[in-house]
């Protein structure tokens, strides 16, 4: 069993009052495996994801532990070294595509900028690569998209652009934090489809969500988080049909309640 991502004893504290927000989180993601993380609002899912890519403000949060990508601990490297991995070997799909892009930069330049940060491509070559990766995402009129400002595109389109950016540098792991939450049902289906393709190509996927439906469709294993700790873990089947903690049961029930309300 080859794990491409190993997270060990990840602890996140608030520096100002030394309180621990995320405690002793450990998990593995294997090649072509999808790990789901679920938990109520404020349970520390986003902080965990951000800490893995070193996105947390060092002046606010203290982060301890190990985040090993193919054996290399990026968390404890200096920033210059780890930047070569972040955005390339491990990449992220953000929750809200409408605010993730720089509103004053054209979509194409986001792609070019990312490619140039990790490769020696010229600007022209990078632009051509950008067009190709957008076409692979089944986007129409890619030249137009490349030349658009983010606010002129729909959330669904931007989310696909973000996935294209995440995939274009052939990552080993992709972290998707509520990547489907802001989208309508149709776009959600498209994104879930992309997740399937990613796992088929051997990418390890970490999917954070509130939505058991999403977990049920894509995940192999599930972590349940509460108050910054992992309180339960297992295969999707175990968690869905045989939850051990009251908390997980409640989460599952709440989900059915939501469904009932939606269909009422």
């Amino acid at each position, binding site marked *: 069993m080859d794990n491409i991502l190993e997270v060990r004893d990840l602890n996140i504290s608030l520096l100002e009052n030394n309180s621990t927000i995320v405690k002793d989180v450990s998990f593995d993601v294997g090649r072509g495996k999808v790990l789901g993380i679920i938990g109520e609002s404020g349970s520390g899912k986003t902080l965990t994801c951000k800490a893995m890519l070193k996105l947390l403000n060092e002046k606010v949060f203290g982060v301890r532990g190990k985040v090993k990508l193919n054996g290399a601990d990026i968390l404890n490297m200096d920033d210059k070294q780890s930047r070569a991995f972040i955005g390339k070997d491990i990449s992220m799909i953000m929750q809200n595509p409408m605010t993730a*892009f720089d509103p004053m*930069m054209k979509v194409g330049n*986001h792609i070019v900028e990312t490619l140039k940060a990790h490769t020696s491509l010229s600007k022209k070559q990078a632009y051509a690569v950008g067009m190709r990766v957008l076409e692979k995402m089944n986007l129409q009129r890619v030249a137009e998209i490349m030349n658009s*400002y983010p606010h002129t595109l729909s959330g669904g389109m931007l989310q696909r652009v973000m996935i294209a950016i995440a995939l274009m540098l052939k990552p080993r792991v992709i972290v998707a934090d509520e990547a489907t939450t802001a989208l309508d049902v149709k776009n959600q289906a498209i994104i879930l489809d992309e997740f399937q393709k990613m796992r088929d190509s051997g990418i390890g996927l970490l999917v954070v969500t509130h939505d058991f439906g999403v977990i049920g469709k894509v995940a192999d294993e599930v972590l349940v988080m509460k108050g910054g700790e992992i309180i339960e873990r297992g295969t999707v089947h175990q968690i869905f049909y045989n939850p051990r903690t009251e908390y997980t049961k409640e989460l599952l029930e709440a989900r059915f309640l939501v469904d009932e309300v939606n269909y009422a």
Partner: protein
Amino acid sequence: MLGYISNRIMGLIIVLIGVTVLAFIFSNISSVDPAEAFARRNILNPTPEQIEEIREEMGLNLPVYRQYFNWLQGVLRGELGTSLLTRNPVRVDLAEKIPATLSIVGLASFWIIIITVPLSVLSAVNKDSFFDHTLRIVTTFGISIPNFWLGFILLVAFAIMLPIFSVVDYGSLKSLILPSLTIAIPMASSSIRLLRATILENMKKDFVTYAKARGISKNKIIWQHVLKNSLPPMITVFCQYLGYMIAGSAIVEAVFSWPGIGSHLVSAIIARDLPTINGCLLIIAVIFVFFNLLADILNSAINPKMLSEAGEV
């Protein structure tokens, strides 16, 4: 875009009319009688008849609205009347004074930009560092120190104690340095505050997190993403400053005996030289309004969102 600008221009014309009407009303409710002031300056012991004559000659016996329309007709023909003080056409006097003020303001703008941008970025990036705290104290002084006092200090320090710059040396580039710094320091101080705060706010935005997640370097994130997104409020404020600098140039011009439009306006006010006062106010209002428009145009040019909100993509 064009429709938007022409809308703005219409609004600005209304502002100009408002400003000039107010100027007329205020000079009329003032207790000093300009005809009498003029008579006393030019005739020894003028009789009431002589004063009346002058009043009629100057059109000051007409009701205010007639005076205003006469003046407005002149303005539309490019005539601002004749100065009661210098007896030159107001237009000629202004054309002579404005370049002096513009050269101070131009150099002051240059200082403001080259001081504000790097210092704001440095203090935002190193928030709560020694540098940041020091800069906060310095800018607090910069904002609260009165202009005439700052000018005076600079004058004493650099022209008298260390005579690097001469005091009365109108015309050379060197003579511009102290007055322009006097204007620039308070404005740079408050724009550092604004830009630092805007940068800090933008550093918390999602697009910064996402740029980091894509592996973009810190420098690129600051200079290419955060700074650019922090410019629009800065541009608006800076263009307002340009207006304030010109309108408020009187004090600095007085301290440095600089023959610009500010000191010209002050002497006109003292002499009750109504045509000059109105001419100066009109020019200052036009400049103010022009820079406000410029701020809008610049902002919509660099900010794609504003452009499309204004009705065009």
